[in-house]
């Protein structure tokens, strides 16, 4: 096996495919990857395309990625069969900065659970763990953690009917009231609008947070400029950004570049991403 994995892709056989739900599948590969929670790899399906995916499962000899079947590429990816070859470059990006404390909240929205799951596994067992999704079917990893999760869904099909921010705000206020120690860090990943709300909430209570952003990517290593968000290079400076950085990022939840390099607002960006 090649020692360097962030240059030309290494081709790995799909060792195991786990269907998580109607929309999600997790693909496992037997390879010992150097890895930090929050980092991502570029996955190449030869002849098709190459896209960034977070590592959602990791141990010494195996790693996994969880993919939501949305467009052409991700549908092809979840349709791969055991034994099929896929290419990998990476891992890229900075990953989460972890602190040792139990006054931590982790807030996952939908597929945003993917990068957070290996992080949670490194954290204290008595952290606050909030998990939201469109509906019950989109809740990932039901039996993965021995940590209690607070669940919410947009449609109320499981847990609280409403947003993750509702639960986070309740927790913060509750801690204030009960004289519990305030949160020292909030980690979050999910739709950018959700992360932005979590960020604003944290700001109003002076709690530092770390969010994991997503932009269209080409190189993955900070050269091509496809993924810039303001003056930040998401693939290299990020994808994880902390509050201090986010305060300087005017484009957070506002502007993203299309494939052509054209800067558009997030609505336009997502409707472009839906075209195929």
């Amino acid at each position: 096996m090649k020692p360097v994995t962030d240059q030309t892709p290494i081709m790995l056989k799909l060792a195991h495919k786990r269907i998580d739900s109607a929309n999600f599948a997790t693909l496992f590969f037997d390879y010992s990857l150097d890895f930090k929670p929050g980092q991502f790899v570029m996955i190449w399906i030869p002849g098709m395309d190459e896209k960034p995916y977070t590592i959602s499962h990791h141990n010494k000899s195996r790693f996994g990625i969880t993919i939501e079947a949305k467009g052409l590429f991700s549908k092809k990816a979840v349709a791969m069969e055991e034994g099929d070859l896929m290419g990998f470059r990476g891992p890229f990006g900075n990953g989460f900065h972890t602190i040792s404390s139990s006054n931590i909240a982790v807030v996952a929205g939908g597929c945003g659970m993917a990068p957070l799951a290996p992080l949670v596994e490194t954290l204290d067992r008595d952290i606050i763990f909030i998990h939201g999704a469109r509906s019950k079917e989109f809740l990932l990893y039901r039996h993965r953690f021995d940590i209690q999760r607070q669940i919410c869904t947009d449609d109320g099909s499981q847990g609280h009917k409403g947003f993750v921010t509702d639960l986070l705000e309740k927790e913060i206020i509750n801690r204030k009231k009960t004289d519990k120690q305030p949160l020292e860090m909030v980690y979050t990943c999910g739709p950018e609008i959700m992360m932005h709300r979590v960020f604003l909430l944290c700001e109003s209570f002076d709690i530092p947070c770390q969010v994991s952003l997503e932009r269209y990517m080409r190189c993955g290593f900070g050269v091509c400029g496809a993924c810039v968000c303001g003056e930040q290079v998401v693939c290299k400076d990020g994808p994880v950004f902390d509050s201090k950085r986010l305060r300087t990022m005017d484009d957070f939840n506002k502007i993203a570049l299309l494939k052509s390099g054209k800067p558009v607002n997030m609505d336009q960006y997502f409707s472009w991403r839906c075209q195929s």
Partner: protein
Amino acid sequence: MKFLGKNLNNPLVLASGVLGNNKEILERVHKNGCGLVTMKSIGPAPRDGHKNPTVIDLGHGMINAVGLPTPGYAHMEEEWKALEKRNFPLNASIYGGSVKEYQAVAQFVTAKNPDFIEINISCPNSEEHGMIFGVNEKSAFDVVAAVKKVIDQPLIAKLTPQAPDIAKIAKACEDAGADAICAINTAGPGMVIDIEAQMPILAFKKGGLSGPMIKPIAIRCVYDIYKAVSIPIIGLGGVTTGEDAVEMIMAGASLVGIGSGVRYRGINIFNQVNQELNSWLTTHGTTLDKIRGAAHKTNCFQESAQ
């Protein structure tokens, strides 16, 4: 220092197509020690570029076939509005598929008043069956002359090392009115095949080579061009250290560009290279002006040896 009448903090230039996708990142690169920043090449019509993989690191350099993505010159009003209030010198790179297209893009861009306009002539000439503008003296002359007519800023012609004799192309550009030469664009082209996938890795199959492995080609090109023209040269290709910059300047460069180097040392590479360059100059008790083109001088040994 002065370059074509403009003040630059230092002789380093950000290569086109590297990072330069918005005002904020250009400003950050400038703050990190880059004297002149170049925008991603602007083209005649909106273009997504190629599918991924488009950029692959090969360890001693990289290969890319991004495919000249561009919002298209007519769709960049907001970007230009932001750039109006910039506090750094700006080099706008443009391209086209025909002389007319180059002119159209140039006319639009000149009105936005960048400090320099760089024309990337490594594009296939649609009128000449895909032949690249920059490998042919006549087409290089024509496109430079046509663009020069419609712009108010100094014109920088960016050349490709795929020309059989790059010095002749440089001379044609000078004759056509170019104010400076930028050399080189990516070398090759190359191809990397993944033997497990049994397929070229780049979606576009072939791509341009950049980074440390092309430095000897870039140095040779700058050396040849320096002999052929009297306008200044931006030397570019494989520079990652202050010593590389010294080498480029000794070959004849006035400014030194950095692109792929950002992969190997991060955005701060500009500060690092400046510092290394300056400390080299200090240790050797010399100046940029004194070492420029130094590799062209013969010394006493050479005469006795021939």
